[in-house]
């Protein structure tokens, strides 16, 4: 740490931080954001293979076959969670929901809501696929 030029406060050190709902949700917001960025790169790869022509596209799909379902499911959950937590952040920015009781309430709400939304989106996408 000798090279640090300023004495500004550091973010909590994850290894020595006691886990509680508030901190876990905050860390998850960052992790899901990171995962979504990677998901976006995946989408770019998909478009890239599409641009390369039919063969490249089909070999791309072949390559990701098997784990793509799990990946997409996880991606949808990350999106749902990041969106819910994002709304919570926007409410905080407007000055709402800072009481400790509210923080825990909304925290559990977004956890449950994120799984519900994931189920909904995945279910709809499969129903759509099943239709002619």
């Amino acid at each position, binding site marked *: *740490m000798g*090279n*640090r*030029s300023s004495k500004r406060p*550091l*973010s909590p050190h994850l290894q020595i931080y006691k886990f509680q709902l508030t901190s876990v949700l905050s860390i998850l917001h*960052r992790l899901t*954001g*990171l995962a*979504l*960025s990677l998901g*976006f*790169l995946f*989408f*770019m790869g*998909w*478009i*890239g293979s*599409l*641009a*390369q022509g*039919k063969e490249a*596209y*089909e070999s791309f*799909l072949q390559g990701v076959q098997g784990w*793509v379902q799990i990946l*997409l499911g996880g*991606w*949808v959950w990350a*999106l*749902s969670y990041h*969106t819910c937590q*994002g*709304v919570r*952040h*926007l409410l905080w*920015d407007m000055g709402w929901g800072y009481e400790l009781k509210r923080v825990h309430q909304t925290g559990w709400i977004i956890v449950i809501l994120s799984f519900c939304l994931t189920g909904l*989106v*995945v279910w*709809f*996408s499969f129903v*759509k*696929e099943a239709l002619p």
Partner: protein
Amino acid sequence: MKRREGQRVWAVRYWMLQRLTAVVLLPLMGWMAWSFLTVVRLPYEAALSWVIGHRLEISLWSLVIFFHAYLGLQVILEDYIHQERIRWVFLTGLRLGGVALGFFLLYCFFQLGG
């Protein structure tokens, strides 16, 4: 002193932009998740016509998503990389990567038939 002032202005601007892009992206989430889940598994011809039919949407949303992701990743890097030189390398890499992705997307659209 001037640099500190600049950092403060940037911090406020950053805060506003992160929220602004978040609000813009909010109504899009459902559509994006749903179309992504269904479109990625389509056969070649159908996928091709989907992308060509949605070029404008894909470009605009990609731009906003790029920006939102960039701002978020920048904060993570700033929080966990304490050495300024290494941090600069990562941040510059992030910026260059974003620009490269933008050109990549343009190239793809060009390849797909403008």
